[in-house]
């Protein structure tokens, strides 16, 4: 393992310190328990948006805390969901009268820990569960995983909350965005969790893992390495089958890197995915390309599609001021 770190036990804390310092105009870091919250709360009551999950996916979620998006994010240890006390303290720190909405990626650890926090929370609250990974069948025993589509839910609901929509509206909108979002990805390499000190899995030079989550695990199936065209075709077809956008349908197209794949390749993937839907007459209204929902130093990428309507487009375009997404501010 070769990483720019000191002791494996301190990676997360030291990194969070740097994050909070670099973005001290946007966020504040709380220690014991650990959470990152928006520096300046909204002056009028607004629904508090809280997310979280294992660390190692940066900039998700800490990098998405700020005006127009999350009010707070709870990072767990690397690839380990955070604990209920973090979520509870985060919620209590940012709630200001309009209730709390948890945005949770559908992973057993995240779901159960957020559930416990929610049961203990003493104010109006609800949860949006994101399960956008279409590499799994819809009736999978645990439900599908929540992956890169989470950012899109957070952005759109974040804008709605900022504009004063109430808890039930935000919850309904979040469910709506989640339902209209589908993702799938593949990995070219494993990643190395510092505490483990070695790659999570071995993979040969002519093999990829198709249908991966975001915790550096193996995917649904190994596949022989192929051209970008074939790899992207594989995932766009699965996403298309799920959401079945018709000619004229407005969409948001998000190509997400897992951490070690150069932007050059991500844009190449974007080009292929865009062509696929353009050929069907689908209208790509908004795009996002970059490393947003990562798995440490894993190579690979995912494609996410969200069906848009005019309201969602307006909310996507609304001002946002976070470490990783910023416009209109």
């Amino acid at each position, binding site marked *: 393992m070769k990483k720019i770190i000191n002791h494996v036990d301190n990676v997360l804390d030291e990194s969070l310190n740097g994050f909070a310092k670099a973005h001290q105009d946007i966020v504040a870091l709380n220690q014991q328990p650990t959470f990152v919250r928006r520096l300046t709360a909204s002056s009028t009551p607004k629904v508090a948006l809280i997310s979280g999950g294992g660390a190692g996916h940066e900039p998700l979620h800490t990098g998405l805390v700020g005006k127009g998006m999350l009010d707070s994010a709870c990072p767990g240890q690397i690839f380990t969901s955070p604990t209920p006390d973090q979520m509870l303290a985060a919620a209590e720190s940012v709630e200001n009268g309009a209730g709390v909405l948890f945005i949770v990626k559908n992973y057993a650890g995240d779901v159960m820990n957020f559930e416990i926090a929610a049961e203990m929370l003493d104010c109006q609250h609800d949860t949006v569960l994101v399960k956008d990974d279409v590499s799994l069948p819809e009736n*999978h025993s645990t439900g599908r995983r929540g992956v890169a589509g989470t950012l899109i839910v957070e952005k759109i609901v974040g804008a709605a909350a900022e504009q004063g929509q109430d808890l039930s509206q935000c919850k309904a909108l979040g469910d709506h965005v989640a339902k209209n979002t589908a993702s799938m990805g593949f990995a070219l390499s494993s990643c190395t969790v510092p505490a483990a000190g070695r790659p999570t899995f071995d993979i040969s030079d002519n093999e990829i893992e198709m249908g991966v989550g975001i915790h550096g695990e193996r995917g649904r199936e190994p596949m022989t390495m192929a051209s970008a065209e074939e790899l992207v075709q594989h995932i766009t077809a699965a996403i298309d089958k799920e959401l079945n956008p018709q000619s004229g349908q407005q969409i948001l197209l998000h190509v997400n890197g897992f951490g070690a794949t150069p932007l050059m390749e991500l844009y190449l993937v974007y080009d292929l995915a865009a062509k696929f839907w353009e050929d069907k007459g689908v209208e790509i209204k908004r795009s996002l390309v970059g490393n947003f929902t990562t798995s440490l130093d894993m190579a690979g990428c995912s494609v996410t599609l969200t069906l848009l309507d005019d309201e969602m487009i307006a909310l996507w375009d609304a001002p946002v001021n976070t470490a990783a997404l910023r416009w209109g501010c």
Partner: protein
Amino acid sequence: MTDTNILPHLIQAIQSEMLNNEEEISALDRAIGDGDHLTNLLRGLDAVAKLNNELIQLDWSAALMKIGMTLMSTMGGASGSLLGSMFVSMGKTAKDHQLDLAGVTAIYTAGVESIKARGKSDIGEKTMLDTLIPVMNTLQTAVLESQDRSSVLKNIKTAAIDGMLSTKEMLATKGRASFLGERARGHIDAGARTSQLILCVIADELGKN
């Protein structure tokens, strides 16, 4: 069973056992999970061990609750919420029970039931429950049959080991391994293995008294 004075010793024995099997446990969670299970567990055990002085001042109910809250707020992950719930639930139940075989069985059963409820899971899904539930069944049988202490301890170990081994050929329907479909077959579940190691250490230690 004795008073909570035994806890520091038990916790230490469990920590050693985890470290003795470090490589194997990590490899299990890397193979069909994400590789952090042992780290999570050690972090939790470490936090519990720091409370030793406090724990021995408490009665069993309060000590178990404290352990549960500590695991819950330090482990994280699926196992943190599950083991945390288990101990909190055992603590609550311990209030109304003697620590005889029937009492321990009732307390343990409440713990396992809370995992089933929180995890929406049951035996046969390739999780820690494949270790924990057979042990629960063994205890319940032992109560019905009024087994003697050494038989009970022996039977617990057998059930734990058989249960753990049974996960090997299972398909997973809960936890991360479920995402792998057929590829999870042939691997023992990490949580089943650590639960088994913990139960066996406890049985061994109690057998020494």
